[in-house]
């Protein structure tokens, strides 16, 4: 039997044994969190990790806690990694946790990925389908928890940006089993009214499990079919849900959603004032343009006396008439000249002209005789001159001579 001199010595020894054993000095263990306390002063988290029959105390120091991507909660199933030790002061056997991972988180991420792929291929996230968000909605429908910071963040932001707005809250649980169904009822309710111009679905940040209701396929389809523009403001900047993808606009936070849904009152006012002055300026410009046109017309000579105009017209008419007569005369003489030259041309080529120059031709029975062949002594011929013809009789035939 070994005798320890003190409790401290015993606890220190036990601690050393645990530290020396590779299994207890670096371990991972699965269990459910309970009795979680995060101390305000130190920021360390103390909790119990348990299964059906056993439990162990755990501590996670502030700096490790801060590196987690989620906030641990009672009932959460996690895998802890850390080291086992005995806290000497009270002999408590405990785990000092360095990291924590949610069990089943991988499954959820996988499910979301698959749903995302499915809905994306059906075109539910298509940019063309997204509705524009109105600048000045007459009434904003909010689907959110009536308790908690989210609705107050939205109201505070709206108050800051625009004193005049109307908001209608549809209370819905934004966590747990009924979340998707309640949000769907909210959308149905707003779509059944005629006073809602835009819908905000809002929820604060949370673990992927907390936000799981917003990865619901039916909710996604309901948002897609919704005739009113939907802004999704679920979780913090880094949290994405299917609801965010299918909504007409995704706001990183509920506060941002409120900023997106209502234009800054001052900006709207000054923009309107600007438009008004542009309208007045445009009318003044119009009047100025018309005045200048009128002045120019008034300056024109025609307006001095109508007789000036008549005289101008008469003199130009006279000159046109003179031109017309001249050109008519010219045209006739040209035509005549042209005709004569054509006639001359024809006469030059005609047979009568040849006869005039001393030639004559012989014909028999109305046909010109162009050869001595076929003629016999005693045949009768007509010889045609330019001014008449005579009948002759062939006395001799000399072939090959002219």
């Amino acid at each position, binding site marked *: 039997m070994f005798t320890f001199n003190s409790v401290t010595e015993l606890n220190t020894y036990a601690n050393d044994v645990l530290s020396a054993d590779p299994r207890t000095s670096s371990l991972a263990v699965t269990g459910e969190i309970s009795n979680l306390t995060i101390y305000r002063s130190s920021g360390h988290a103390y909790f119990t990790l348990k299964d059906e029959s056993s439990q162990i105390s755990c501590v996670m120091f502030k700096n490790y806690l801060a590196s987690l991507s989620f906030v641990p909660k009672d009932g959460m199933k996690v895998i802890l990694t850390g080291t086992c030790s005995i806290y000497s002061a009270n002999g408590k056997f405990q785990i000092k946790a360095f990291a924590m991972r949610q069990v089943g988180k991988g499954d959820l991420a996988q499910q979301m990925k698959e749903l995302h792929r499915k809905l994306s291929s059906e075109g539910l996230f298509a940019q063309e389908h997204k509705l*524009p968000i*109105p*600048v*000045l909605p*007459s009434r904003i429908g909010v689907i959110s928890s*009536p308790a908690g*910071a989210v609705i*107050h963040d939205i*109201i505070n932001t709206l108050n800051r940006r625009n*004193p*005049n*707005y*109307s*908001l*209608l*809250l*549809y*209370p819905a649980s934004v966590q747990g089993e009924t979340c998707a169904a309640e949000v769907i009822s909210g959308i149905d*309710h707003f779509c059944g009214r*005629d006073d809602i111009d835009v819908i905000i679905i809002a929820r604060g940040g949370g673990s992927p499990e907390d936000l799981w209701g917003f990865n619901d396929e039916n909710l996604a389809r309901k948002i897609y079919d919704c005739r009113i523009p939907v802004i999704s403001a679920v979780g913090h900047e880094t949290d994405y849900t299917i609801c965010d993808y299918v909504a007409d606009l995704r706001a990183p936070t509920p506060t941002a959603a409120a900023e997106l849904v209502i234009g800054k*009152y001052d900006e*709207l*006012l000054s*923009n*309107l004032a600007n*438009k*008004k002055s*542009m*309208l007045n300026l*445009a*009318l003044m*410009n*119009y009047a100025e*343009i*018309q005045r200048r046109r009128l002045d120019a017309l008034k300056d024109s000579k025609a307006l001095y006396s109508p007789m000036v105009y008549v005289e101008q017209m008469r003199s130009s008419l006279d000159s046109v008439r003179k031109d017309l007569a001249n050109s008519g005369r010219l045209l006739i003489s040209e035509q005549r000249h042209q005709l004569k030259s054509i006639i001359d041309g024809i006469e030059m080529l005609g047979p009568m002209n040849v006869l005039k120059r001393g030639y004559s031709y012989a014909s028999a029975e109305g046909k010109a005789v162009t050869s001595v062949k076929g003629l016999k002594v005693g045949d009768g011929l007509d010889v045609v001159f330019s001014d008449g013809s005579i009948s002759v009789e062939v006395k001799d035939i000399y072939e090959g001579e002219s």
Partner: protein
Amino acid sequence: MAEKFVYEEAIAELEKIVDKLSTGKCSLDDSLELYTRGVKLANECDKKLSEVEKKIAVINKDSLEEEPFEEDEE
């Protein structure tokens, strides 16, 4: 229900009217008509900006009636 007044549409129409009027190519009658319409739109926008009464309500899920939403102080 009367045709719903949409702020952005009214502003867009107002911009078109200003553009049209600025060209100086419309008839006098048309220009006056455009101007009148423009003033009417601007006044409606004004009204819309200032007339919405601040109202925060919550749906009672049992009766589906609106009830005033109490903003509790934090």
